[in-house]
């Protein structure tokens, strides 16, 4: 998975991105910080970090593919988190 694909997920979910040593992304809904994920700067392929990003986003492989390849929207994702009691 490429960093550009991760950035696209961050943008699609309208995550608040904070740049430090790494790029930290926070999902905020109705003013509440819901979850956090991150990626490092400057690598083309993020390797197994993708596995951790998926876990931090609380989705399974299929749902993660949906986030990456576009079918799963922000509102769909929020509904998913709500069904898990995370929102």
């Amino acid at each position, binding site marked *: 998975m490429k960093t550009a694909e991760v950035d696209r997920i961050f943008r699609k979910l309208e995550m608040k991105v904070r740049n430090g*040593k790494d790029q930290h992304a926070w999902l905020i809904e109705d003013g509440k910080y819901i979850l956090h994920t991150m990626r490092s700067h400057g690598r083309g392929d993020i390797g197994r970090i993708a596995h951790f990003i998926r876990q931090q986003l609380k989705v399974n492989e299929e749902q993660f593919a949906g986030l990456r390849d576009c079918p799963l929207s922000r509102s769909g994702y929020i509904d998913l988190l709500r069904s898990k009691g995370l929102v």
Partner: protein
Amino acid sequence: MARDTGRVLAGRWDEPTGGEGFSPGGSYPIARDTRFSTAAAAVTTTRFEPRPTTIVPISNFGSEFVPLRPIYVVLDESAMGVFTAASYDLELVGQGDTEFEAIDDLKAQVVEIYSVLREQRDNLSQPLAGKLMFFESLEKKS
């Protein structure tokens, strides 16, 4: 025993003490290329094989965050030679070209995340509030 490592070196490898293959309690000799006889060509790396997953305690975060007890980190190496340091308690992972870099990356994340969680104390979801409580339970008040 000849073994192609798929890396720069391929040649004779000493077996870990205590038998064939990976032994959790065994020691791992340094890989040594014995194809070349001249001193200039004989290369000794600082690379150990196999690289087992390691769990290490981390307590020095180089910041005001001084935990009373260490955070345990799982150190691993990917096929691409990138190291990861993961805390399953904190759901954080650092990465780097060396184990130390991966741990330093994780430490920076711990400090960053803890800072944001404290700033946003009143605006956290239940899971993040739980994470903040966990951080605070670790912290040593000076």
